[in-house]
């Protein structure tokens, strides 16, 4: 009986993290380019003293890399990636990667993303629109065109999913260089944005699951407590 209450507590702590993850997903149901997080539970301390007891813990939180729905915006500088890949941006903290293609121009005519970070062109160069240009568009290969002339090429890179770490602001940082380009580069759709791939129905189901699991674990803890107090009161009492 001794370890049962701790097994239940470990389960409740794991469910707590699962709730935080479900909350983050639901909060980001409208975030451009957001990828849902998935919790994986695992056994911790499985082979310790008691063979029949295993503590649950959150083993990993991974990204669901499935594509989000595309939404037409008809804004010529909004682009979405069809397929695997990331846009590069230069931030004060270094190069970061994003799926959100909500580009625009800053006050120096540079192509920047929604957060104001400068978009990386090929080779990491910034893409500047010449003074007085009147139409700027991005085509299906990621070429930025001002008044009919190509002025740059958006950098699109691929990574193994495990090489990326979430940074917030729709950005990821990479632990190594991008993977070598394989096959066709992802197609770019201009005038559209990739929406969050959070499925709110799934979010609701996760929420129900977590709260019910937590409730059961609390009952377990309560059950152990009741057994302990019954033992303390009952055992050894003269009949």
């Amino acid at each position: 009986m001794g370890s049962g209450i701790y097994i239940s507590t470990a389960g409740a702590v794991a469910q707590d993290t699962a709730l935080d993850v479900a909350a983050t997903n639901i909060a980001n149901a409208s975030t451009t380019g957001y990828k849902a997080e998935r919790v994986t539970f695992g056994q911790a301390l499985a082979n310790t003293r008691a063979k029949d007891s295993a503590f649950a813990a959150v083993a990993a939180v991974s990204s669901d890399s499935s594509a989000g729905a595309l939404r037409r915006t008809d804004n010529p500088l909004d682009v979405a990636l069809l397929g695997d890949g990331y846009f590069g941006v230069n931030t004060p903290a270094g190069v970061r990667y994003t799926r959100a293609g909500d580009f625009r121009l800053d006050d120096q005519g540079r192509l920047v993303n929604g957060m104001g970070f400068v978009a990386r062109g090929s080779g990491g160069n910034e893409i500047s629109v010449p003074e007085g240009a009147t139409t700027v568009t991005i085509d299906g290969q990621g070429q930025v065109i001002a008044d009919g002339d190509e002025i740059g090429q958006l950098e699109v890179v691929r990574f193994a999913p495990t090489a990326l770490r979430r940074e917030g602001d729709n950005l990821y940082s990479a632990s190594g260089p991008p993977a070598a380009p394989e096959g066709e580069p992802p197609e770019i759709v201009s005038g559209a944005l990739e929406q969050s791939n959070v499925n709110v129905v799934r979010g609701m189901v996760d929420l129900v699951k977590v709260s019910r699991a937590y409730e059961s674990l609390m009952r377990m803890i309560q059950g152990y407590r009741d057994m302990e107090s019954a033992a303390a009161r009952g055992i050894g009492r003269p009949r």
Partner: protein
Amino acid sequence: MIRALSTAATGMEAQETRLDVTANNIANASTAGFKKSRAEFSDLMYQTQRAPGTATGAGTQTPTGLQVGMGVRTVATQRMHSQGDLRQTARPLDVAIEGRGFFPIDLPTGEVAYTRDGAFKLDSEGKLVNSEGYALAGDITIPPDAQSVSIAADGTVSVVVPGDSAAVEAGQIQVANFANESGLESTGRNLYRETGSSGTAVLGAPGENGTGTLAQGTLEMSNVNVVEEMIDLISGQRAYEINSRVIKAADEMLGQTATLK
């Protein structure tokens, strides 16, 4: 749980902003020259409990890390400058731009503002003004005895006065183009102001510099698509509701913990 509470609160705040933006779009569904906006969001920072690639012992590494997010925030509202529907009004001083470009308007402060709303009127001096009474740049004056006014696709304004069979040119309407229309600052009253992000205004005759041509007797309506806005309204409302359920779930879980005896 406390983290989930604040995460869900950021989600509700974001959906509230989205609803505000949608409400403004719907309210302006019939405003001439109005351009719809959209709210843009980004995820907040993450708490890294275990970084990906951490050694787990026995020479293995965790393939995925353990990062828990903290919610969402609104980063921007962006205006979408797609063409609105054109409505025939047959009023000679209603002018629409078919394509890119803005009418420059001289503000009383001496600044120049820009608008897509081409419902022009005449003031007491016969000058072309917008609905607020601010003059269209270029000081185009229509003589008081003019019998008809015609505005050509290239912006040339000509009038027919009594005693003269030929039309007389009264001026030319110019339009301004910007490299980045979305960078314009909205100041209300259908007016926009140039900013560093929009680039400088390039003035020219309609049809030049990639601008559209003018259509007389036509007004550009708002580009708000009411069906789209309704869908946004519904999905925003539902997302708000689900975020509030997260708060309820977290609260119940906290309650269960607190009542353990």
